[in-house]
């Protein structure tokens, strides 16, 4: 092994990489911009839509109720509600979004109330349609307030205290510190993103440095130089690994910043926004990266080995696209509830790293599992790198025709 030659290859590949618009976009631009655009875009869009729906005056029909003027008065007093004349095709008109909801008041509602009989008021709306739900919610809220008023007046008429129907209250109190709350919510996502992006960041450089080199005709040029195949593959491998880690680091910075900015932007309710604040220290982030490092080595080596089989850039892309699914499935599985770290799962690459990252961000350190996962991932990574070096020494792979 000649470190001068490895460094020479690495520097040359880095120069070419920095000049390649295609790989730069996938490695630097996309991870930097994807999160801010997605987060800010989605949150602002949803807040604008929700706000607009809440402020909008909803057209609502009242079916019946002619014999119950009190409830009609209550409904007419609801803000942002416009009562429109009732028609028999109310369901069709709700579906066509001409009216948002219809309130069915049973016949003799008022007199039944006076007799103390139980009644049901139906609210027809279109589920999944934001404005219809919003209109129905406002109507329901107003009717519940009216019901509570009736209950209170009945109780006071009989000199019964309110505690008679509400003997005790139930309240949940959070004892988890903020970092645990955000860790549980975002812990899985952080590990998942680091894993997924360290793979996607490696794809284009891995193709460019292997199949791309074959396609451009520079493979034979470099093989005619005195550099050993081991030094050549290591120089290339370190560049692919650098690209992979760069993508992951930039993505995490971008994700953290986006969450922080959105959480403080006032677009979201304070409770939801607090969950978005990543209360993770530098040590936690470094731990996640340390755990993901052997996996990044594994990805770089495996992607290079597979791409080396291809004769062209396009062929390599078709080989590597399914790799995304192979990585996504175990990474997503770790986010599912009920999947916890066990000794057996600690030996499953990708899934184990994703699970342990989730725990680390949530502040839990199972040192035995951490050691086992790091070691097993390192063994897989070393094996993949060994195979990559061997593949670079096989003429049938380098000169496949």
């Amino acid at each position: 092994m000649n470190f001068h030659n490895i460094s020479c290859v690495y520097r040359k590949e880095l120069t070419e990489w920095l000049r390649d618009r295609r790989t730069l976009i996938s490695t630097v631009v996309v991870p930097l911009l994807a999160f801010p655009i997605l987060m800010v875009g989605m949150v602002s869009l949803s807040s604008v839509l929700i706000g607009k729906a809440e402020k909008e005056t909803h057209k609502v029909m009242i079916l019946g109720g002619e014999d119950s003027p009190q409830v009609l008065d209550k409904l007419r007093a609801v803000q942002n509600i416009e009562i429109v004349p009732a028609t028999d095709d109310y369901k069709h008109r709700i579906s066509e979004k001409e009216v948002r909801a219809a309130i069915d008041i049973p016949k003799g509602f008022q007199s039944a109330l006076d007799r103390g009989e139980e009644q049901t008021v139906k609210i027809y709306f279109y589920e999944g349609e934001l404005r219809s739900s919003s209109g129905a919610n406002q109507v329901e809220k107003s009717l519940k307030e009216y019901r509570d008023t009736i209950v209170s007046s009945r109780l006071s008429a009989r000199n019964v205290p309110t505690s008679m129907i509400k003997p005790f209250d139930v309240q949940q109190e959070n004892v988890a510190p903020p970092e645990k709350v955000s860790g549980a919510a975002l812990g899985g996502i952080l590990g998942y993103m680091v894993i997924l992006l360290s793979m996607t960041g490696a794809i284009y450089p891995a193709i460019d440095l292997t199949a791309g080199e074959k396609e451009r005709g520079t493979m034979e040029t470099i093989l005619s130089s005195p550099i050993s195949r081991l030094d050549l593959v290591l120089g290339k491998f370190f560049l692919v690994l650098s690209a992979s880690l760069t993508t992951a680091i930039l993505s995490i910075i971008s994700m953290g910043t986006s969450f922080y900015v959105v959480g403080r932007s006032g677009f979201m309710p304070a409770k939801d926004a607090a969950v978005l604040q990543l209360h993770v220290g530098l040590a936690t982030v470094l731990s996640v990266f340390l755990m993901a490092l052997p996996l990044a080595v594994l990805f770089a080596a495996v992607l290079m080995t597979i791409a080396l089989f291809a004769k062209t850039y396009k062929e390599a892309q078709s080989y590597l696209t399914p790799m995304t699914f192979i990585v996504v499935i175990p990474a997503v599985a770790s986010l599912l509830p009920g999947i916890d770290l066990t000794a057996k799962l600690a030996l499953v690459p990708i899934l184990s790293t994703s699970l342990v990252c989730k725990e680390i961000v949530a502040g839990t350190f199972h040192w035995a599992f951490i050691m086992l996962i790091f070691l097993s991932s390192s063994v897989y990574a070393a094996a993949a790198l060994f195979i990559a070096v061997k593949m670079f020494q096989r003429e049938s792979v380098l000169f496949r025709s």
Partner: protein
Amino acid sequence: MIEARGLSKRFHDKKRGEIRAVDNVSFTCQPGKIYGLLGANGAGKTTTLRMLATILEPTDGTALVCGYDVVEQPQKVRANVGFLSTATALYPRLTGQEMVEYFGRLNGLDEPTLKKRVDDIFNRLDMNGFRDRRCDKLSTGMKQKTSIARTLVHDPPVMIFDEPTTGLDVMTARTIIGFISDCRAQGKTVIFSTHIMSEVERLCDFIGIIHDGMLLAEGTLPQLRSKYAEHNLEEIIVKVVGPLQSNPEA
């Protein structure tokens, strides 16, 4: 000096089975001489030259290049060889100068020597006008000059050219032919393969005719003319390869 000793290369093909691309080929190329390797497409020229450049490993036999064994000491062989073919392209995103410097460094040149060598070659080949231009922006002629500079940067005593003028225009091909001739004048050992008979007649001191992986005839041009009683090199090749091969449609 190059000494090929029973050089053989077999490939395995799923459909065709074992293919003997090069079969027990032996020859010697002397310093200050040009050895021309002639043959049809698929005759085994490129495989032979790739084995001499240690890009491919022989299945049997070996070759000595400057005294180094291509099987046992491939890195030392490559350090003494300049290899140029139509398949040895340039890195598109490097400049001409960066390309040449990269290969100089891989050949172990220290920075002061590399700088002096690069300046010298760029002056000699009149390349200063485009030394900072990226290779993907160069014309075909400029690319060939850069490739020549790349093969020369470590001043190798042995030069291997595999069909270096194929697909080139007349002016660019002349540059290459002039360069090969210069290599001989500098006392380098040169071996090159080509389809163009005029190049062989103009350049080669020694000729080897290869067919189906076997070296069927060898000698100087006058020797071959006398042996096969033909003046035209093309007719000599037809006689060597055999009447069945004379019809290109066959």
